């Protein structure tokens, strides 16, 4: 499996397919916590190559947000601002004036008004964005997001899609999801997993043409509402981006 730098890849698959395990392997947490769980593998991130999967946490090269954003909040700091600053303290890269770095990021994520709020008192969507900020502040070249859209309402999903789109080109993003809507709105590559094996790896358009092949691996019934728009999109690949956006807006 190869993900070109600066692009966004969606890992789709049913529960238990190995999506989260894959992200844990890529971040280094898998071999660190379960040394015997992975017998072999090779990973290359840019110039950095690992003959075996890494046994140490690759942060800040690789940033991972977990499925439950609430556990990502450390509770070590009283405010959202402090929580984000905590990551910079961990990496030893606190600038002279942290506000200059943290506030623009919070503004980008639409949570600058929450800067002084207690991180444990936020809603699911807000917590998700704070969790993302705690990772993004370290500017990881590779960003792994484990089902980031699960706890979000449609408006928050739309916002997150916008954020990820704006990061493409500078950051390589890998997103796991069970929802097609979110993945299609932002990703350049789709990988379908089932029981740890790759069933498909390719462009979204190619995936849509072969979607029915994955009937046993993916919740196709719940994606039927997208079909008319997606069919139209496939007829004219040149307008793919805008039509996908339209399709998603309808949902």
């Amino acid at each position, binding site marked *: 499996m190869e993900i070109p730098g600066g692009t966004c890849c969606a890992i789709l698959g049913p529960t238990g397919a190995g999506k989260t395990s894959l992200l844990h392997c890529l*971040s280094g*947490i898998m071999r*660190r*916590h379960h040394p015997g769980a992975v017998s072999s593998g090779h990973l290359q991130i840019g110039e950095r190559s690992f003959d075996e999967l890494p046994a140490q*946490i690759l*942060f*800040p090269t690789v*940033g*991972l947000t*977990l499925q*439950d954003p609430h*556990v*990502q909040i*450390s*509770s*070590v*700091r*009283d405010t959202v601002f*402090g929580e984000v600053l*905590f*990551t910079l*303290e*961990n*990496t*030893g890269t606190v600038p002279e004036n942290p506000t200059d770095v943290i506030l623009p990021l919070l503004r980008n994520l639409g949570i600058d008004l929450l800067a002084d709020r207690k991180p444990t008192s936020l809603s699911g969507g807000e917590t998700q964005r704070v969790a993302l900020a*705690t*990772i993004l502040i*370290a500017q990881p070249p590779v960003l792994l997001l484990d089902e980031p859209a699960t706890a979000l309402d449609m408006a928050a999903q739309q916002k997150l899609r916008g954020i990820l789109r704006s990061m493409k080109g500078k950051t390589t993003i890998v997103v796991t999801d069970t929802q097609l809507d979110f993945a299609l709105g932002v990703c350049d590559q789709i990988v379908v997993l089932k029981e740890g094996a790759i069933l498909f790896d390719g462009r979204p358009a190619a995936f849509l043409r072969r979607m029915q092949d994955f009937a046993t691996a993916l919740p196709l019934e719940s994606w039927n509402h997208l079909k008319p728009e997606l069919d139209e999109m496939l007829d004219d690949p040149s307008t793919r981006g805008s039509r996908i956006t339209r399709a998603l807006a309808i949902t």
Partner: protein
Amino acid sequence: MSARQNLPPKLAFVAFLWVCAFTLPWTIQAFLCLLLVLGRFTIPALRPGSSRAARAFSRFILYSIAVATLVSLLNAVLIREGAIVGNIFGISLHQEGLLFGARTASRLLLLSFSILLFFVSTPLPDFIQYLQEKGLPPYLALLLLLTLHFLDQLPNRIHQIFLAQQARGAPVDSGMISRTKALFSILSPLVLSSIVESIERGTALELRGFLHRPQASQPVEQGRSHTYWLTVLVLSLAIVILSYSIVKWLIG
């Protein structure tokens, strides 16, 4: 004065109270307990951080005093030495037993009140940050953080599991025996969910580089602050009391 600046004298104060709990007569220990309860209302640095913490501390005081009284009375009944100081339902209370019970109870009360008051009046983030600045290894900081977070969330979590079990029809609020039986249905999800959350929280902290954070540099102090001298004074007092007790014990 910020909560973090208060920490060194507060820690010294707890150390002083622990020394007192093992060296001074029980009457002074009981008096110190009383001062602590009053200090919770009057000394800003000892005020609980939230109304929830204040309620928990008040409830703990009430339960502790009830238990201490019970311990003293039981000792007065069971240790039949010294003069009879009273009768309850025809059962004699003996002076030596009562004193032994009072000594044990006042010591336990002072130990528990001091440590509890420290934690209810100290924000967890400040405490962890302070320890890290003082060079606490990240692994220990992580362990402490997860433990304190678990304790902090415990009442909330018990309440949630209690409600969930109630919604499933478990007889969690119908009499003492039913409640005791239902305790098992609360305990297992409580323990399991706590373990899972602690692992995930620890993983999340690792994923943010917590275990590899550079040693925090201590802020350069401009001269000696009030808190520094207060800390020195309280610790000196503790050392004097401890030394006096050791010398007294050696002389016999």
